[in-house]
């Protein structure tokens, strides 16, 4: 492994090569920016930010929909010695009000001194930041951040070199988990990032070499896009193609076109992206594609369906795609990103469904029993460990399902200014991932999660947010809502909303109103709406709804009698 480097050190090394990043924006415009030029831009932005008086370690939120702008701004913030806090831009955040509220919470919680954004986004966001409308969020807006655009930072004094930072300094605040009301910022140091990135690109990971080309449409406010694709490319100084996720979602073929045209050898995406390509890339388009150089087709960030990957491999085989390229992976933001990689293609464990559910053991299926297929997620990196433990934190034998915990230099420092949640998540140096799984032949298999989070298309939704959104729908009883996901090991989450109705509410209208509100505020489709009489939802003595108990009763068929 290379000597651990900070992000700016890695960018300076990359700037000594002739390589760089090709940006493909949402409208297909492309622009090639050598790392040398990116470094110069970063130093210019960094100089302008320092001239404004910001100091080492200050947080700067960044919300820029254009990817070239985001990347330039990101490295500029880092070059200034400041800590970037990436935010999801409004086009993909459901509606504008939700975007503004969510972003304002994160900006407040991170005590960001500045927001780096665009002239288009600023008016959507600034009012919510200036006047937080949620009294229930005490952390909001203790400092009032300044708003800057990349244009407004042009022409300032440029830095001769990025500010030197140490591996123990905070590199990044990654707000990917936690509900809107209680945002959780994952604190990562440069040491964390370097450990994870070097693991990803190193010989036990992808074995990245100078001839590799990465291609990614993954959002850069998300760990897999930012760390797995962008930073991994910079640390290995390879040619990279960074495409707008909006372009991919408009035309999934654009991803494969880029892999084909630029000789992409490494690309990661969640399960749904492989499904989308198979559904929406026409067979007539196949002959224009050359996917033969794609040697790592990584899959992660949401439950992996073996059928999806198999069908993708079959469908794109005529374009030169090799199924051995598929690389199932497991990771989470609290571990910087990657925890395990499974080399050698998709390997499936077919286990007895009934014994998995009833006894929490994963035994290979015998003829006739109903079965579930679970994808092998592989082994941890050198210097890192993964275990499956029981409730007392005792390691379980192979093929026993328990909590997945991980340890090593990639594990976060904690959640920003959230000591209680941090303490519950980091136990004796082990990260409690919140996911359930088992080990078999030394490999990790992931088969569920203990946290309440709902995952759809690689995005995480928090039941508390969805419940809050439903609280004032006409006809819904006071705090009479529970939203949860039924998780399936081999299929997407099923979203269930249990709603206690007020007397006289019209049920057909109410069901539609519930679906509509969730679509409006979260862009999420509820699979099942259960209308029930008040008192149906189990509560604690203090009156709080008990979400997991509600789910258990629903699954057992005893919730509504």
């Amino acid at each position, binding site marked *: 492994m290379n000597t651990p480097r900070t992000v700016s050190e890695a960018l300076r090394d990359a700037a000594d090569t002739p390589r760089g990043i090709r940006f493909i924006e*949402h*409208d*297909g415009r492309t622009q090639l920016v050598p790392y040398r030029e990116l470094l110069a831009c970063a130093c210019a932005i960094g100089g302008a930010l320092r001239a404004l008086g910001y100091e080492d370690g200050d947080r700067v939120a960044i919300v820029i*929909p*254009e990817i070239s702008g985001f990347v330039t701004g990101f490295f500029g913030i880092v070059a200034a010695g400041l800590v970037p806090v990436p935010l999801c*831009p*409004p*086009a*993909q955040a*459901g*509606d*504008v009000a939700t*975007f503004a509220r969510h972003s304002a919470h994160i900006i407040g919680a991170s005590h960001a001194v500045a927001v780096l954004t665009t002239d*288009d*986004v600023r008016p*959507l966001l600034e009012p919510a930041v200036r006047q937080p409308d949620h009294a229930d969020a005490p952390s909001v807006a203790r400092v009032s951040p300044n708003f800057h655009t990349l244009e407004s930072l042009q022409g300032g004094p440029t830095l001769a070199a990025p500010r030197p930072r140490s591996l123990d300094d905070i590199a990044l605040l990654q707000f990917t988990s936690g509900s809107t009301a209680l945002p959780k910022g994952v604190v990562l140091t440069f040491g964390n990032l370097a450990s994870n990135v070097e693991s990803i690109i190193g010989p036990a990971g992808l074995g990245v070499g100078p001839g590799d080309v990465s291609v990614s449409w993954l959002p850069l406010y998300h760990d897999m896009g930012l760390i797995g694709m962008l930073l991994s490319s910079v640390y290995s100084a390879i040619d990279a193609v960074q495409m707008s996720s*909006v372009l991919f*979602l*408009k*035309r999934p073929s654009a991803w494969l076109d880029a892999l084909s045209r630029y000789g992409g050898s490494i690309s990661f995406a969640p399960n749904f992206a492989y499904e*989308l390509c198979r559904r*929406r890339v026409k067979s007539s388009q196949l002959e224009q594609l050359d996917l033969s150089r794609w040697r790592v087709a990584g899959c992660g960030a949401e439950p992996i369906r073996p059928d999806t990957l198999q069908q993708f491999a079959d469908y794109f085989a005529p374009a030169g795609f090799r199924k051995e390229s598929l690389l199932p992976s497991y990771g989470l933001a609290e571990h910087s990103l990657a925890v395990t990689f499974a080399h050698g293609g998709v390997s499936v464990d077919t286990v007895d469904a009934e014994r998995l559910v009833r006894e929490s053991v994963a035994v290979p299926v015998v003829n006739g029993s109903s079965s579930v297929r679970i994808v092998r997620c592989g082994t941890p990196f050198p210097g890192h460990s993964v275990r499956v433990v029981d409730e007392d934190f005792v390691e379980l034998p192979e093929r026993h399902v328990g909590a997945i915990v991980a340890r090593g230099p990639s594990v976060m420092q904690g959640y920003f200014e959230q000591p209680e949640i941090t303490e519950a998540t980091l136990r004796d140096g082990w990260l409690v991932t919140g996911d359930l799984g088992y080990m078999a032949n030394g490999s990790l298999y992931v088969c569920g999660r203990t946290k309440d989070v709902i995952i759809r*298309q690689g995005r995480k939704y928090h039941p508390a947010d969805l419940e809050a959104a439903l609280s004032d729908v006409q006809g819904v009883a006071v705090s009479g809502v529970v939203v949860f996901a039924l998780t399936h090991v081999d299929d997407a989450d099923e979203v269930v909303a249990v709603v206690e109705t007020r007397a006289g509410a019209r049920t057909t209208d109410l069901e539609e109103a519930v*679906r*509509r509100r969730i*679509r*409006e505020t979260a*862009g*999420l*489709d509820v699979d099942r709406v259960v209308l029930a009489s008040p008192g149906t939802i189990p509560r604690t003595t203090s009156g709080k709804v008990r979400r997991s108990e509600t789910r258990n009763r629903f699954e057992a068929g005893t919730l509504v009698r």
Partner: protein
Amino acid sequence: MANPSADRFEQDTVEILTRLSRRPIEPTPDKELMADLGFDSLQVLELVGELEDHFNVSVPLNALTHIRTVGQIVDEVRTLASAAPGSPA
């Protein structure tokens, strides 16, 4: 479904919307794509991609943030197509 007062932008958009929807819908101009027609954020972008290809336009990112109804997206592509050089409209 044919509406004599609708122009080709509205007619074609309605046709594409109906094709992309997973359930029977009646996409009148006042209907909201997500709340009324049940499109998720993925389908909205799929729709935008189809409309861009069909009308040979490019919908700006900031417009995506504001488009909620069928009428708004029809207006957007109509404006973009009319502004494009060599437009047949």
